[in-house]
């Protein structure tokens, strides 16, 4: 019984971690290549989820909904980069924080204006709606397993893209020396737009996939955004590998902490105190993890320099 619960929670943690990775990968790429801190990344997640819900409502096809999420988020990201973000590359972080905070206000209220304040729902496709029985007799929702698989495939694809393709070489070159790669004849502003749109598309995909488990509503992006920040701070800003490991670590800490802490506390105090203190502490656990990592390694687990 407890073993099955444990496996389930580990899988939930993986699923959560993989989603966080999709968010964190875009953030960390944008920071690594352009040196930009983008608070509006959560808005792209929301755009993806709303686009998916709208298209799924109109056509009934989940695959079309996913395509719409990718396209809408990438388009919104490219537009955002062309109109606003590219004016911020040479500014200090304060200006970047504020301008992207302003973008959040515009995106959130704009979405509320278009779709209203009530949450939308996105249905899980029929093929994935049931549970699957895993080895050991554990029944687990097929959709969540599919999310884990999609996330891992995308992670592998991203590693391949960065390590093996021409675009990846340019991205890495842009990270280490942007003047030099511009001097070598690469259109740096086009590269920036592409990287930004790529990050946006990943965020939009994450929004659409999670939107089928939770409800699709205004403001859904910000909690995920902050967790994605925690992930890239833990993993080291600019590192895709760090983002993946950080995301899985945060996902597992969040789900396992919720069941482990009250159980541990029950050994020392009475049941009611243990439950309430455990709930309060486990909601803080990821931030405690982050503080711990930073005390140990201020530049994050895989960060090059602080």
């Amino acid at each position: 019984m407890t073993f099955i619960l444990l496996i389930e929670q580990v899988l939930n943690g993986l699923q959560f971690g993989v989603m966080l990775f999709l968010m964190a990968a875009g953030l960390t790429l944008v920071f690594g290549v352009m040196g930009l801190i983008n608070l509006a990344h959560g808005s792209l997640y929301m755009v993806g989820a709303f686009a998916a819900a709208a298209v799924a409502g109109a056509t009934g096809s989940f695959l079309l909904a996913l395509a719409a999420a990718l396209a809408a988020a990438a388009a919104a990201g490219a537009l955002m980069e062309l109109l606003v973000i590219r004016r911020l590359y040479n500014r200090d972080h304060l200006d970047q924080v504020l301008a992207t905070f302003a973008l959040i206000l515009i995106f959130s209220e704009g979405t509320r204006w278009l779709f209203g304040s009530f949450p939308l729902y996105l249905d899980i496709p029929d093929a994935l709606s049931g549970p699957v029985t895993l080895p050991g007799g554990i029944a687990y929702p097929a959709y969540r397993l599919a999310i884990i698989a999609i996330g891992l495939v995308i992670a592998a694809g991203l590693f391949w893209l960065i390590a093996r393709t021409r675009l990846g070489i340019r991205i890495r070159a842009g990270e280490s020396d942007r003047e030099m790669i511009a001097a070598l004849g690469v259109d740096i502003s086009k590269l920036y737009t592409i990287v930004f749109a790529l990050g946006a598309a990943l965020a939009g995909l994450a929004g659409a996939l999670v939107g089928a488990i939770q409800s699709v509503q205004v403001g859904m992006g910000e909690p995920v955004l902050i967790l994605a920040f925690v992930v890239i701070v833990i993993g080291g800003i600019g590192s895709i590998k760090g983002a993946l490991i950080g995301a899985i670590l945060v996902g597992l800490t969040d789900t396992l902490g919720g069941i482990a802490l009250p159980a541990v506390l029950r050994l020392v105090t009475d049941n009611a105190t243990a439950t309430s203190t455990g709930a309060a502490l486990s909601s803080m656990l990821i931030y405690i993890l982050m503080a711990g990592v930073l005390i140990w390694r201020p530049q994050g687990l895989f960060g090059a320099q602080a």
Partner: protein
Amino acid sequence: MKRETLINAALLLGLLLVPLWAYVTDEPFTITLATKVAILALAGVGLNIALGLGGLVSLGHAAFFGIGGYAMGILASHAQSYTPLMESPFLIEGTKSMPVIWVTAILASALAALVIGTLSLRTSGVYFIMITLAFGQMLFFFAISWPAYGGEDGLSIYVRNGFPGMNTLDPIQFFALCFALLLAALWFSHRLANAPFGLALNAARQSPARVETVGLSPFHLRLIAFIISGAITGLAGALFADLNRFVSPNMLSWQTSGEIMIFIILGGVGRLCGPVAGAALFIALEHFLGGLSEFWHIWLGLLLLLVVLFARGGLIGVLAGRQVAHD
């Protein structure tokens, strides 16, 4: 500089005259709006010490604002239910007295700033922004999931707390208290900026290596600035909770941190009265745009975007011209 002093005087005089005029014409709601401006400006003055003087972009100042708010909520709720806060090892009772609440709020948020600052100041740049943000979230989730003081619903108190010799239920008298505290904080922050400490802190922002070579520690300068900054914002939080007679985890949310930062940017970073101008503009926008359209945040976002992209000195920068001392 001369021109900025004039603008500052006009700004503060305006903030004083509007509620007085509202008092004469009997419009208590306008007085409440002015009180809100004074309190939020006070929170901004606090953040401005870290942000403007110290160059520390903290996206977690809602933590101190909320701690101040909860200091008021917890003390006052114990006082109104006649239950002691703590019995052992010694007895602590709740209180409805503002000065005691203020001192508690200042001490509690200064202590939190000491802990958060010691850990966060090990990093700089983007890491610092994200870590302060994460500490803010940590307290936010703690407040939501800790059931003893209302959890997600927050805490309300029935009657506003008292100040010896004054009737705080009268809007104009409560405004006078908040305005006096704002003036005191402005005077303090002006003196601080021109004191050896402020000059050293300013130097640490511009060139940490040189500050280190003359034998000062940038870390300690920044930590002290962060603590002072957190304490003032905490005081503002206690006043804000008293104004609403309500405190909730919302005060700790990261949107609150963003809003306090918006006051400073709208007004002008590193300007003495920047937060006052910014908070006044913010509340005016909220009041007038909020009346025009339900979706006034879009217009706020556009305005903020324009200020960041094209009017970098903020309101005071536009009115008083470029500042020589900053950067």
